């Protein structure tokens, strides 16, 4: 009757170990199901990549600043004209922070409307990328010289696009409330948006506010701006 004791003890140790370990895991993370785990992993990957992008953008910015310093040091004679031309080109390209009078538009999802009608289609109550895109277009028609959406400077290569339930600007995720700042003539820009998107959104009861500002700072474009295929003629 003695021979079974050792194997049974071994199996008991193992099963006790597994039981306790599993219990510990289960109490530690309550949201246990394959789908949410998978998406949690994906979110981790995305967040890591976004951090990397941010880092590299900062690197680009610091290198640009360094370049500016070096260029400003040799600021004499003919070079000065060229420097000014370069500065103009950079302002045009959106590679410098700019300051000036302009307007700030703040858009947000119509949460109150959605709460009041919870059975209605939520799509009717959230800000979509088209709203921002149209608003930006109308600001441009109104003569906006520099535009940023949630701090993302719009340049020639900038996109405003929808990915699932997010909006990407300059390949960066942005979330409500959306702040569109534009430098230019406040009067012209206000007229331009009042005829279109602003009025539409107001009539749909989105919480929206427009502010005129005497001094508005719009940040520089941080991302990459390279022309690999296009050559000037």
């Amino acid at each position, binding site marked *: *009757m003695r021979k079974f004791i050792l194997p049974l003890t*071994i199996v*008991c140790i193992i099963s006790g170990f597994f039981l306790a370990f599993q219990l510990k895991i289960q109490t530690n993370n309550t949201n246990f199901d394959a789908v949410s785990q998978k998406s949690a992993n994906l979110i981790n990957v995305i967040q890591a990549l976004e951090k990397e992008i941010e880092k590299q953008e900062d690197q680009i910015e610091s290198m640009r600043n360094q370049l500016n310093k070096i260029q400003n040091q040799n600021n004499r004679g003919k070079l000065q004209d060229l420097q000014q031309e370069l500065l103009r080109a950079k302002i045009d390209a959106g590679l410098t922070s700019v300051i000036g009078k302009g307007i700030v538009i703040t858009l947000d999802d119509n949460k109150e409307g959605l709460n009041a009608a919870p059975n209605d289609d939520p799509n009717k109550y959230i800000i979509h990328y088209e709203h921002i895109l149209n608003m930006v277009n109308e600001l441009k028609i109104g003569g906006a010289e520099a535009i940023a959406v949630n701090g993302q400077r719009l340049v020639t290569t900038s996109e405003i696009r929808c990915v699932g339930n997010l909006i990407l600007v300059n390949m960066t995720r942005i979330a409500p409330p959306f702040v569109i700042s534009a430098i230019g003539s406040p009067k012209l820009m206000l007229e331009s948006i009042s005829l279109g998107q602003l009025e539409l959104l107001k009539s749909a009861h989105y919480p929206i506010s427009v502010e005129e500002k005497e001094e508005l700072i719009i940040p520089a474009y941080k991302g990459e701006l390279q022309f690999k295929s296009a050559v000037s003629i």
Partner: protein
Amino acid sequence: MWPILPLLGLIIGVYLGSNFSYQLPPIYIKYMSIAVLASLDSVFGGIKAVLKNTFDGAILLTGFFTNALLAALLAYLGDRLGVDLYYAAIFAFGVRIFQNLASIRHHVITSFRAKRTSARGEKSD
């Protein structure tokens, strides 16, 4: 006297498991649950075998490891194929645990009755 050592083993195992601080990647939690069932199945299978006098240590241990491996393999294959094959393993282990428990109960009750009737028989004689 004989259940003391395995019981002690169980306690030691629980102690080790609750002090084991390894962060299991969440994807493998599924495999852990199968391992728990496989080991429980082996424990009950072993007890049953002891009561029926058919116990063989080699069979118990190899059975435990091959069952666990097969179940893990099934779960992995299921993951690859998009079919939750690991339910098959859980089901199989669950059924076996119930069967083992049932036969342990049967054995305990019948042996208990046999003892009582024999004791009575001795008295009445």
